[in-house]
């Protein structure tokens, strides 16, 4: 087997070090092995992608049910609701918050409902919740009026039920 032609870019290099204009022709084993590995990696990524896409579709179905459940329970057909997923615990528990009366998102007292379990007839189980003052982030120190499983679950701090902040007015409770 002859050595492939060297380029004329570096005539000062010894032959064994000189750059090659093309690859040494071989039996194609290396190329075949590379192609096989590439195909396997491609198939693996395809499986991972499809799995994750299906997972996202399931999550979206659950979120749709969460929103529908919140609207059904509160009787408010608001578009602007926030959904917080349990990213740390990697569970399917979600907390949906929305205003207790019409207005821009978060501008009024919000009611938050804790959703768990599977989607049944387009709805999820709600086992409790809490309230948030206007323009407040959903942090334990801001929550009050915990009810249901949210009270025993420590959503409003260790005592279960946090007192209403005195400086805030109540709307629509």
């Amino acid at each position, binding site marked *: 087997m002859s050595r492939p032609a060297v380029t004329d*870019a570096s005539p000062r290099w010894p032959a064994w070090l*000189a*750059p090659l204009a093309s690859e040494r022709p071989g039996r194609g084993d290396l190329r075949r092995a590379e192609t096989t590995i590439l195909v396997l990696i491609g198939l693996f*990524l395809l*499986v*991972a*992608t499809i*799995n*994750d*896409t299906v997972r996202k579709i399931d999550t979206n179905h659950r979120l749709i049910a969460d929103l529908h459940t919140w609207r059904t329970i509160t009787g408010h057909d608001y578009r602007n609701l926030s959904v917080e997923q349990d990213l740390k615990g990697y569970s399917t528990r979600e907390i949906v918050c929305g205003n207790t009366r019409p207005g821009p998102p978060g501008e009024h007292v919000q009611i938050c409902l804790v959703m768990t379990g599977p989607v049944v007839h387009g709805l999820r189980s709600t086992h409790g919740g809490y309230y948030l003052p206007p323009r407040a982030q959903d942090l334990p120190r801001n929550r009050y009026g915990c009810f249901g499983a949210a009270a025993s679950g420590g959503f409003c701090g260790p005592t279960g039920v946090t007192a209403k902040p005195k400086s805030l007015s109540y709307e629509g409770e």
Partner: protein
Amino acid sequence: MNQISNPPPLALEGAAAQGATVSLARVTGVRSRRVTGALVLATIVLLAATLEIVIDGAVGHSPLIPKSPQIAGWLSGVGERLGFRVFLIALLADIAAYALFLSLIGSVPRRLAIVLVAALNMIVFAGPILFSTDVFSYIAYARMGASHGLNPYLHGPFTIHSDPVYKYVGSDWVRVPTAYGPIYTLITYPLGLLGLAGALWGMKLLALAASAGTLWLTWRCAAKRALDPRFALFAVGANPLYVTYALGGAHNDLIMLLFMMVGVTFALQERDASAASAIIAGAFIKATVGVLWPFMLASRRTLGTVGGALGAAALCALAGYLAFGVHGVDLVAALNRDAALVSTDSFPTEIAHLFGKPGVFPVDHVMLKAGLVLVAVHMLWRTWRGYDWVAASGWALLAISVTSTWLLAWYILWPLPLAVVSRDRRLLIATFAVQALFVIHQTSPLFAPVS
């Protein structure tokens, strides 16, 4: 390359030959009409899908469109708010038309390919900023330096929270100093003085010019390597991810790609010092493109490749140091910081979910880096043995995007200009396959749209 060639001439005599010629002409004519019809259809769909995204995007109030100053207000009365479903249908139609057009590129006149790519680029240029707030970060960093006298390598945009651009910067980035190279930051400083709308148009113009330059050089490189330049031009310039995401978001990756293709063009002309200079200067725009240099060196093995790189590195580092101090030239720190980020669209995250893990852990980062090093070493070894260094660089860039835990649509465009001018067609297939997987992963709102 997909080319439709005429059937070979038939060796027949007399009436048989005449009959065969008539029959052949009929078959060729039918096929020609079908090809023309398919090309017309593909052209219409490409233009219509891109227009749909741009016109609906101009309405704003969409989770897909970042909050932005009204730079495309003249379009806003035409469309409707861009929802996930409409966007995905338009994107999928765009991709189908792109694939059809590419498969028939051998029958496409050069002028049509150029005009269509130019039209797609111009449509997106005229519209709003699409899908990403990054351009507002670029402007914020530029204004920090040019208008407020602050070093964007030390502070995040939060330090200029009274500036008009601040409210448009993505909330994840308001406290993050710039991760881009000092040459890019210096290029953007004059734009920072133009006011918000002026800077935005300046960024869009910069992205358009970089795109035009990249496409022109891609054409030239393909022609130099005896590949079909129409295919190369169209594969890059009409790529739906390139047009809607990279150009639509006015991303600085386009400027990085321009420097990359300048380097490849010089290298193909055997102007090694200039080629290496362009690649290293590109790394001072966005560090990723520096990956090409070792492959260029392993292939060329000239003093020019080393000298050009050293010269460019010294000049760019000096400029960065004088303008921004030591932080301005610490490209590795910026790379390390970005490498720690995790996005839901990255392949490592998908693989983690496949194995039941909630996400990517530090040990996964180590494994991914090890995998990346393995690919790089293998490709360097191949390049040393004569493998096409352009293809090797493309594989390295593709490996970076696949192993990155922070993957965005415009990252999987990095290897594309190299793939269309490389001698290894597997790279192009792999690049398209990775892009296809990325798009598949985006389609979940099509099946379950959350309102």
